[in-house]
């Protein structure tokens, strides 16, 4: 057992921090506010220029062959600086890692280097209006026609589809297969495909997610990702776990903890002591979550894909973010309800509280995560299937 970072990891962290100091500028935030998007193409390009996109991938696919721990350090430092990396995540973690885990050689050669160079971004399209927590209840149809697949149906709640290049789409390719988890396939669909209509849905977070309508969207066969009809197995074995482990926001938690401590540092009133104590408790939990997060990354580095632990770090960090934002709002009082960059902490306390649903529900609701942890991690029995009506 050894909790020391390697010199390479320490140097990497220093490099990241230096980069963030220079590149995460007020202008960046102004740009994103103007565009109403969480994606900043120029900043993404600057990450690519450093070779930091897909840094855990093999060199032959444009990666740097670094560890998942390096990736965790990358997230921490970027989040600590509030750098815009949502699209980075969807491209690298959801799409890229899936391609690497179960894509074809051709797909790896096509997608990974392009993602790594920042030329191609991707998003993950799983949820449908009727398939939320019951994610396998997919109705979007994929029909094989010669050298193509034809997709018809709907997806919903996709962040970033409006300006990404490819969507990784889960579709029902064999409706005759027994049981809803059988007969699902994954496709890498160019988002500019004819017949694919992307409409924004406004969220209370201030940005839009999307609903996508597939009307005879034709996808060349080579973009079938993974084994035909066995997409659900790939999703649950890999993608959902990548997603859950990948969206843990430890860096954000550490930064907000520091900011709140700074806010409280001056106060000498009795109430500020009790707030400081609440903050201290939360920061202890955050540091604990940080080390759980390192352990999850390390498990991935050992070649494992830990389902229960990935759900744990996801639900834990989302709930810590909520509690931290609640505490921030309690500290700030009325000012904690004020929107915008002129508000204390640039309005981030208000923002995270208002948009906490994104963190709680994205990647699966807390209820779903707990069921996974109980059944996969603790080995508790599944609920018996209800009698069909």
């Amino acid at each position, binding site marked *: 057992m050894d909790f020391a970072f390697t010199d390479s990891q320490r140097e990497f962290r220093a490099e990241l921090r230096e980069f963030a100091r220079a590149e995460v500028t007020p202008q960046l935030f102004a740009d994103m506010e103007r565009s109403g998007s969480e994606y900043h193409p120029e900043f993404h390009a600057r990450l690519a220029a450093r070779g930091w996109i897909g840094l855990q991938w093999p060199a032959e696919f444009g990666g740097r062959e670094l560890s998942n721990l390096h990736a965790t350090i990358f997230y921490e430092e970027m989040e600590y600086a509030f750098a815009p990396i949502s699209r980075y995540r969807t491209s690298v973690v959801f799409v890229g890692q899936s391609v690497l885990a179960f894509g074809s050689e051709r797909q790896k050669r096509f997608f990974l280097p392009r993602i790594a160079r920042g030329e191609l971004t991707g998003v993950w399209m799983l949820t449908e209006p009727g398939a939320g927590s019951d994610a396998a209840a997919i109705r979007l149809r994929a029909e094989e026609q010669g050298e193509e697949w034809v997709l018809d149906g709907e997806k919903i709640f996709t962040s970033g589809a409006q300006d990404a290049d490819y969507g990784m789409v889960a579709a029902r390719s064999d409706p005759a297969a027994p049981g809803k988890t059988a007969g699902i396939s994954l496709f890498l669909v160019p988002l500019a495909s004819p017949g694919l209509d992307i409409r924004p849905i406004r969220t209370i977070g201030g940005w839009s997610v999307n609903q996508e309508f597939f009307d005879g969207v034709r996808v060349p066969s080579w973009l079938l990702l993974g084994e035909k009809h066995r997409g659900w197995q790939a999703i649950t074995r890999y993608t959902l776990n990548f997603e859950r482990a990948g969206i843990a926001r430890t860096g954000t938690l550490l930064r907000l903890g520091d900011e709140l401590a700074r806010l409280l540092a001056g106060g000498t009133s009795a109430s500020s002591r009790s707030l400081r104590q609440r903050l201290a408790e939360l920061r202890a939990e955050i540091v604990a979550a940080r080390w759980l997060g390192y352990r999850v990354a390390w498990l991935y580095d050992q070649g494992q894909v830990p389902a229960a632990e990935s759900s744990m770090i996801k639900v834990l960090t989302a709930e810590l973010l909520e509690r931290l934002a609640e505490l921030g709002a309690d500290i700030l*009082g009325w000012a904690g*309800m004020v*929107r915008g960059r002129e508000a204390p902490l640039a309005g981030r306390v208000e923002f995270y509280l*208002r948009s906490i649903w994104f963190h709680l529900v994205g990647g699966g609701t807390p209820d779903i995560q707990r069921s996974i942890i109980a059944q996969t991690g603790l080995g508790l029995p599944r609920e018996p299937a209800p009698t*069909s009506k």
Partner: protein
Amino acid sequence: MDFAPNEQQRMSCDAARKFFAREFPPQRLRQVEQEGLAAFLPVYRRMGELGYLGIGIAERDGGAGGDWLDLTLFAEEAGRALLPTLQITSVVLGANALLVLGGAEHRDRVRSLAAGASVIAPAWLEDTDESREQRFATRAEESSAGVTLQGGKRFVAGWDVAQEILVVARRPEEETSWVLVPRTVAGLFSSALRLSSLDTLHDLRFDSVALPKSAELRGAWNTWLDALDGAKIVVAGWAVGAAGAALDMAVAYAKLREQFGRPIGSFQAVQHRLADAAIALERAVAIVRYAAWLRATERAGRREAAMARLVAGRTLRQVAHAAMITHGGYGFMEEFDIQLYFRRARLLEWLIEGPALQQDIIAADQEDDGLRIH
């Protein structure tokens, strides 16, 4: 003891609920979110005409009669509809404070406020911790012409549609006075703050604002605290009303929405979360109505007002959260109504006075018989 509303209370609540369903459906609320309080004024004036705004103020004082319990039951209906809280600041606090501070000479003003014909914005918060001590940086100093106001107030509600503000200020002799300031006076500067709820509050600055002597009202500090106590109970009513509506929406959604081949409301996780919300709500309604009744019957009740305010605020937050979670990803969509409740929960927890101050008020109660009844 009788926990059922009487015939008249039932009819009034029913009428109010129908009025709000007709005049203030969610699309109207969304319009107010976009356009500001001005878009609410037509409804507000109509409420004045119907006597809703004047509940709890005697007819001889320019109100519509009814007692604090009637007002709080009405507030529950207003809260269900997520009505903007202009009535609370302008009438329940503003007009009532004028009555106890200024007395008879403000009857016309009160009548106008209770009719919804005019709006007053009480301004008492400053950049310090909430407290019931008289520690204001804003000063009212006597001048040859009358009184001069210097300082600032924060988080003033209703300013955008108010004709005047009621400023709590300190006199040089350390007493408190209340100063009526017209919107258009020289030396008054405002800056807007947009809240999570999309309500707009204002910070105000008074740069040697000169006012006539008649603008200054005097009174005992306790009368102001008593006015705050009353307003808090009404906010608490608003909060439990909103919580009730949010719970209803979540229950309806949980019955309708299916996942895994069954309504999500048949899952224990959903059931237990909503059961906890229901417990919190029933408990909150019980103490809010009790506190309102105490005030209506002019029994003691500062402690109970604080308790009702505190419990109701917590309850709305818990219930709105449970209701949002029940909606899954749809809770995050602007087009779903449940988010309207969620985004207002903290505002309704803090309006008039926030939770830490309520804890202090309750803790300050020295009587040691918890069994006491009134």
